[in-house]
Structure formats: C-alpha cells, structure tokens
C-alpha cells in the first residue's frame, strides 16, 4: 500500500495545485517525483502544525510518517488542527505491528482508538492498494480532515474500483443468523477464516468513522456478531448501538508485544490470525463444522 500511496500522491500533486505532501524524513526515496513535497525532518509536531497552516492558506496538505510518530507523538497538534476546522489528511504506515522487528516504539495498535477522540476526524483503514488510492482521492475532494492507516497486510480482493468512503462493503451475505464485521485490513485474515463458509455474512468496514450504521443494521440486526479489529478495540459501543445481537470482539490485547518477528508472526502474536477468528466463530455459530 505504501508504494501505491507514493504513486497516488505523485499523481494528485501533478494534477491538483493545492495538494502538497509533508513527510517526516521517512519514505523519501519513494517521494522523489512528487512535485510538491516538504521533508519536514524529524519534527512531527511542527510538521502537523505546518500542515494546519497550509490548510489555512487553502492548500490540501497530506502528512505522512510512521503511525506512532503521528497519532501518538503529534496527537495534540492533530487535535488543535481539528479545533481550527482545518482539513488536513494524515497518512501513516506501520499500522499495529508491521514493524515487527523494531519493538513497541514502532508499533501503533492504539492509533485508531487514540484519534477516535479527535472530534471531526474521519478514520480510514483500506485493506488493499487501490482502496488506499480511492480513499486518498476521495479524501482530497472532500474538504474534510482524515486519518488513513496503511499496512502491508492486505486482503484478497481489492475493492478500489467500487469503494466509497463511509460505506461498508458486503463481502458476502450469508444464510445463517450470524455475521462477522471485519474492520479495516482484518479482512485479510477474515476472508481466509471463512473461505469454506459461504453461509456466513461478512461485512467489511474500510471506513471506521463515519460508521456505515445503515448497512450494519440491515445486514446484522439481531444477529450475533464477531467483531474483528486489527487495532485496540474502538468500535464495540458503536456496533452495539446498531441493534446487533451479542458481540464477540477480537482485537489485539492492550499489551506491549516484546517478541520480534515478521508482520505475519506479529499478527499471530496479537491474537487476530485467521485461526483465532475461526476458533472465535464457535461463539456465534455453534453448529459449524470444524
């Protein structure tokens, strides 16, 4: 998704004079052809404030760095930009545990849960490269402020051709009274978990906020739901407010992971691997075959 982001932002800057990329001394080589880019150096807080200033001047700033350095280190600056109604687009890489050999300073399972507390900030979690492309283009056109979380974990099908910010995607509509809600790129592990279960309804949420409550209600009302979030749980209450039945949540535990490994190994360590999802399905679908 990071490579696609570089292509998309290059294209956007070439065709829209208002778009400008700011990055925190990461990914520089990928951005070598971006016509309007500022390497702000290792100064994430000033970078976010500068993005606010650029938005005030009528530009469309896109800010890029590794997730914890934006969502955690520069959280207050993001809050102040939102308080000023400034339409800034924040894009990060690393997600929860992509930097699996780097230790928890480079992990950010908390980004969505933390930024959920910034009023007015939309939250986007594409599951595939062209989805990220579509979301960034729509975000640029929207005039609003967004946070988009990129990851190397990606789903099977790329919904970039049909994806709309704010709309859920019905991955499959099943016959039984149970559903899985796959938030963001947990769709990758979810689709593996249910590959032999066409009877299971699966709703894919590439947009965390605003939540597509209409689709959730129409597909899941009254049904027990398995809610998979690839980050510290954030949506439990909002899903519950949609009139679904019992909710079983699967998300990374709020613990630092002190093991090192590939992103795949870290996904297993955080407890949202497809095998974990498969096991958890018993709670909402007791008659399924093993």
């Amino acid at each position, binding site marked *: 998704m990071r490579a696609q982001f570089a292509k998309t932002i290059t294209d956007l800057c070439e065709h829209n004079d208002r778009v400008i990329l700011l990055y925190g001394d990461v990914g520089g080589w990928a951005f070598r052809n971006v016509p309007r880019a500022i390497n702000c150096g290792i100064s994430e807080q000033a970078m976010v404030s500068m993005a606010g*200033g650029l938005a005030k*001047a009528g530009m469309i700033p896109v800010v890029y760095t590794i997730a914890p350095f934006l969502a955690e280190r520069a959280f207050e600056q993001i809050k102040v930009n939102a308080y000023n109604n400034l339409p800034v687009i924040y894009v990060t890489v690393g997600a929860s545990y992509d930097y699996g050999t780097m230790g928890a300073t480079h992990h950010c399972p908390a980004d969505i849960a933390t930024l959920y507390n910034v009023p007015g900030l939309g939250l986007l979690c594409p599951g595939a490269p062209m989805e990220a492309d579509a979301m960034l283009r729509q975000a640029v056109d929207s005039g609003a402020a967004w946070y988009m979380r990129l990851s190397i974990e990606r789903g099977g099908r790329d919904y970039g051709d049909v994806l709309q910010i704010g709309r859920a995607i019905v991955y499959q509509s099943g016959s039984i009274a149970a559903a899985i809600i796959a938030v963001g790129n947990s769709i990758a592990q979810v689709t593996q978990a249910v590959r032999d279960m066409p009877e299971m309804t699966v709703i894919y949420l590439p947009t965390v906020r605003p939540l597509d409550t209409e689709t959730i209600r129409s597909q899941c009302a009254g049904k027990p739901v398995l809610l998979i979030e690839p980050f510290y749980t954030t949506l439990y209450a909002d899903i519950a407010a949609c009139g679904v039945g019992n909710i079983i949540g699967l998300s990374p535990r709020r613990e630092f992971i002190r093991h090192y490994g590939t992103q795949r190994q870290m996904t297993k360590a955080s407890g949202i691997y497809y095998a974990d999802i498969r096991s958890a399905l018993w709670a909402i679908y007791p008659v399924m075959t093993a």
Partner: protein
Amino acid sequence: MNLNHLKREIVNATQAAHTGHVPSALSVLDIIYVMYHNAMQSDDRFVLSKGHAALALYAVLADIGVISHEAFMAFGTRDSICGGHPDSVTIPSVEFSTGSLGHGLGMAAGLAIGLHGPRVFCLIGDGEMQEGATLEALRLVGSMALPVTVILDNNATHPCRGAVDIFQAYGFTTVECNGHNHDALTQCLEYRSGPLAVIANTIKGNGIARMMAEPAAWHSRAPTAPEAAEMIAELTP
C-alpha cells in the same frame, strides 16, 4: 504613545467576566498595536501563538473596528466570540485558535508557505521557547528561509536565556528592542528579507503597579470591582 485607554478596557472586560490573563495581555499590547498599525502590510498575517494574551488582541481588534466594542465587552461570557483564548472559528481575523503553547509558530510557518508571498508575523512568549515544538518550528522557518517574523515577548522576570544565540543558530536575522516602545518596535519590524526574530523586552503587567509588582499572583486573577476601580484610576491621566 500611551495605550491606557485600551488597558482600561482590558481591566473592565476582565472584571466583568471574572476571568482573564491581564498581565500577559499588558506585556504584549504595544507589540500587537504596532503590528496592526505600522508593521503589517495589506496581505500579511498575524498569529498570536501566546494565546492567553487574547485580551490584548481583542482590545486592538475592537479599537480598529474588526470586532465590535460590545463583542469585546462580552469577553468570557457563554456564547462570546471572545473566549479566554482567541478562536479562529468565531473571529475570522484570528488565524488560529491558540492557547496551548508552542503550536502557533509551526502553523504560522505553514501559512507562510501556503500564501506564497505575504509575511506572517508570529508573537510567541518566553515560556513558549521552552516547548520543543517551538524549536522544531524555528528550525523549519530558518532552514526554509520563510517570510516569517517571530516576535518574542521576553518578560523581564523570566526572560528566555540565550535568545539571541538561539535565533541566530536557527538562521534568523535577530534584533532586540524595548517591547513597549512603538518607534523601536516599528523600526525592528521593518526587515522583510527572510526570517526575522525581534526580541521584545517587556514587563509583565506593564502599566498597573500591583501587577508589575506581583505578576505571577495576577497571571490569571481577575480584579474584583474595587481592585478594578483602583487600576482604572491608575490608568486615567
């Protein structure tokens, strides 16, 4: 030039609202006055990064008619456009809603880049020089040679140590003056060939004896009606 008429307004507004940072406003009032009357050219912008000096900004904006006198006197009331810190959403001439120290200069830098030409003036307090985010922004303004003027409200009671060296290290042309002398400020602010730092040496609570004597005690203390009456008398020729 004596701004006692504006200082009286500040005292009245604070007393009525039972809230306000008067000494901080008094230390920057001359700077902001010079900003709007002498220093800024038509497309230039002003950022009050030291947001708690809001009363000084409101006094000047009311004086030049950008906000109404009624709006200024409604300071701190429930639906006032004049809150304890300035709000860009309620007052269009306020570039950014500040209040948390250390954010304004980075925002001013981004504004300068985006405007392609006009100068952005950013007033910071000596306390803000302690914030890492301020230093990050100084580095970016200096290294990108932005058309930004930083005015440092350098209170005598706790000035920023080494301010001249700090600004120069970050690539700013640096000058120093009495922050209550309008001619000196105007002259210092004339430079427009790149990043400029004006170290304005000021007195917190300037003009009100009790506040100058105990600036910390009066930092966010609104005068009672009898106290305000005394202060008004002191500010009346």
